[in-house]
């Protein structure tokens, strides 16, 4: 066990854990951020996707020590502010994407990373960026539509 300092959603957090503990369990059990989900523990399903310095990573296989000094963004920190959701979150609500909703935090984080680097993604871009995220309920069609819609929304807001 050792004290570890992490930068999560713009806030510095210190916790006392085994440095090899996956980021997922530090977030969920030690830092009170359960929005990032456990699905497989093998980086196969993407439910635990978070952003590390803007890149999507699977928190279930990422040792917490490896992200020290980096900026970690979880689903709890995706919204622009407590009152203003990220355009993807708004699009998810508008398109009524979730069924059970369990995978959607990971889906949103992967989509956020996609739009940050590819503001106007094609269907092929979406396929490539989202292939690591399983939706057991099968909401892929709505996820795709919501990503396109959020991309359009962001472009519109920028052109203002």
């Amino acid at each position, binding site marked *: 066990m050792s004290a570890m300092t992490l930068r999560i959603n713009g806030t510095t957090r210190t916790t006392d854990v085994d440095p090899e503990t996956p980021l997922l369990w530090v977030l969920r*059990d030690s830092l009170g*951020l359960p929005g990032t989900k456990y699905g497989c523990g093998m980086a*196969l399903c993407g439910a635990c996707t978070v952003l590390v310095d803007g890149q999507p990573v699977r928190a279930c296989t990422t040792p917490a020590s490896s992200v020290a000094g980096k900026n970690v963004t979880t689903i709890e920190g995706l919204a622009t502010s407590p009152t203003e959701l990220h355009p993807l979150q708004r699009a998810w609500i*508008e398109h*009524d994407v979730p069924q*059970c909703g369990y995978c959607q935090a990971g889906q949103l984080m992967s989509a956020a990373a996609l739009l940050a680097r590819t503001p106007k993604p094609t269907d092929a871009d979406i396929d490539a960026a989202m292939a690591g995220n*399983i939706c057991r*309920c099968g909401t892929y069609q709505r996820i795709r539509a919501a990503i396109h819609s959020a991309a359009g929304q962001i472009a519109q807001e920028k052109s203002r």
Partner: protein
Amino acid sequence: MSARADSALEAMVGADQHLRELMHDIEQGSGAAKVRACKLDRRTFLKLTGMAGGGLLLGFQVSDTRAATGITADFVPNAFLRISPRGQILIYSKGPEIGQGIKTAFPLIIAEELDAKWSDVVVEQAPVNPAVYGRQSAGGSRSIPDSWDQLRQAGAVARSMLIGAAASAWKVPAAECTARDSAVWHGKRSLEYGALAAKAAAQPVPDPATVKLKQRSEYRLLGKSYTGVDNRKVVTGAPLFGIDQWLPGLKFAVYEKCPATGGKVRGANLDEIKRLPGVRDAFVIEGNGKPTEVMPGVAIIADTTWAAFQARKQLRVDWDESGASKDSWKGILGRAAQLGKQATGEKTTISVGDTTAALTSAAKTVDAFYTYPFVAHAPLEPQNCTAWAHDGIVEFWAPTQTADRALQTVAGALGVPVEQIKINQTRVGGGFGRRLMNDYVCEAGAIAQRTRAPVKLVWTREQDMAHDFYRPGGFHALAGGLDPSGKLVAWRNHFITFSTDGTNPVSGGNMPEQEFPAQNLPNYLLTQSMLPLATPCGPWRAPRSCSVAWVIQSFLHELAVAGGRDHRDFLLEIMGQPRLLQGGLNTGRAAEVIRLATEKAGWGRKLPQGHGLGLAFHFSHAGHFAEVAEVSVDPGKRIRLHRVVVAGDIGPIVNMSGAMNQSEGAVVDGFSTMLGLEVTMEGGRVEQSNFHQYALLRMPHHPKVEVHFIQSENPPTGVGEPALPPVAPAICNAIFAATGHRVRTLPLSREGFGV
């Protein structure tokens, strides 16, 4: 067989009996937990909930401080509704939200009859109390049909009291007043519900059975699209799910069971485990030997989930497998192939006409042997439950599909009076039938009885795959006969299924005598053989239909092709005149959805090279669904599913967005499962452990799904399941149309297909 092995087997058989009863309940909408609470008058409600005084609601966790202080002017006509003087309308959704959208659909039904503005409504999960709420389960697509009248009455009672209050304030007859948009109107004047709350609470409560319900033409809310009431919480990562529960002093547990069902603990390296970092305790639980409750195993209690998972990797258990499953899928395949050579099985389920003679005299016959595998539910949220033994009760935070049944099941398993069990329903990260069973709830309770602290049990993905109640595999040796005009005149099915007790088929592995097309043909023979099995089986999304529809609808297509017939015409001919058959299939509704699906899909149009269209129909869970798939297959047997058109009749739609989402998801689930998913076992152990061996469909391969509903004037029914069964046969029929290859074994990967 030793006495001990006998008793282990008996316990497993007992569990299967439990599952059979459960299946019956969810299909029939009856059962132990089902209490007819439709006549929920206020007197009964007060008695049941201990509610006292004007509008004060005790025993409910209401996030309204006025309720706690007893100072309230809220209007609380029944257990479903609370209207505050500020006009906020709180609606309790009684059943589990498992992704089927019921937490939005149930309140919509109440709000419609209440004539509420949807924007005034906030929704909370109801407490688990079947004596008050009736059925609090999600299964069999029964939520809407079982609760429709009850919820409409709950809303209508409140509306009637609000109108009464306004009429009395205006001193006009109630019959001259109407309700709209959370207000009562008389001519041009109006009073909002919030302003009427206190007066409405003083109104006499009418008998719910006598209140006037709205006509469908008067609906303002139902049938339109609504986004899920918890969507904002879902997309912001709020702690909604079972696995997200947290309590002060919470400890974390894993529970290791024998990988072969029925194995017992001889011993384990508990002392070593207890010394591991972050581990608080480790102990053996004997269990009661029921897979649906508590099987023998070792519990590890730790400070974090990760510490518990790490300790589990060090755990060495000496299993006594003398009474455990020895099931082998390879062995099963061999025995089924032998049995499949027989035209008929050991038991006749139903015999119509003289099928043997009709097949002999038929102008053309087709024989086929169909095989499908066991499959897992694999909900993305692994099984988990938080339990806390405190203040003389055992309290649970459970992601269960059967909150009502869980009370009795858990009480029995723990040896605690049911009054000492409290269950809080959480959002459920995927049901698909897995969480009809409450084994993980019982396990968490058994662990919590040994720990002073509240404890959260989380299964690993590997444990979730290893300890499911699987959709049983099955085999069908078929023969069909056509007359000289290409009309289907005879059908013989030797169904090879499984039994744990030697008498009854396993849950989800039965075919009833009404199964289509038994009532549509002059000669029909369904017989059954059973292979012994120890692996637990259970309902999987659209139980039975999810497997047999593929066989029936594929073989029908084989016969249509053999007779040189257009598949749609052939199917419509078999449906015949519109009539209601035993079991609920309405051939008229069936014909309508078949016509609609084929019309929307452009049936008969010229297709691009290498493309094929496939059609299938299935009736299940009171829903009539026809689907048309368009596929192309490349020379490397790579399938592309371009588009699936779904046409369904489930009566009037409650939430259009929800109904379409369920149908879209059912198509993806159906395709995903038929494509490459199978559970195989050797030595009683399931061989698939995680998503690399159980490869669910991903974003690049989902089809475009188009959904069309016929909103017929029939009572509304559920949509969680019935869109799934036609998917696999429609796709296989399309593969045949594209390639001439008939798929008779699932998953498709077994015949060399992939995406």
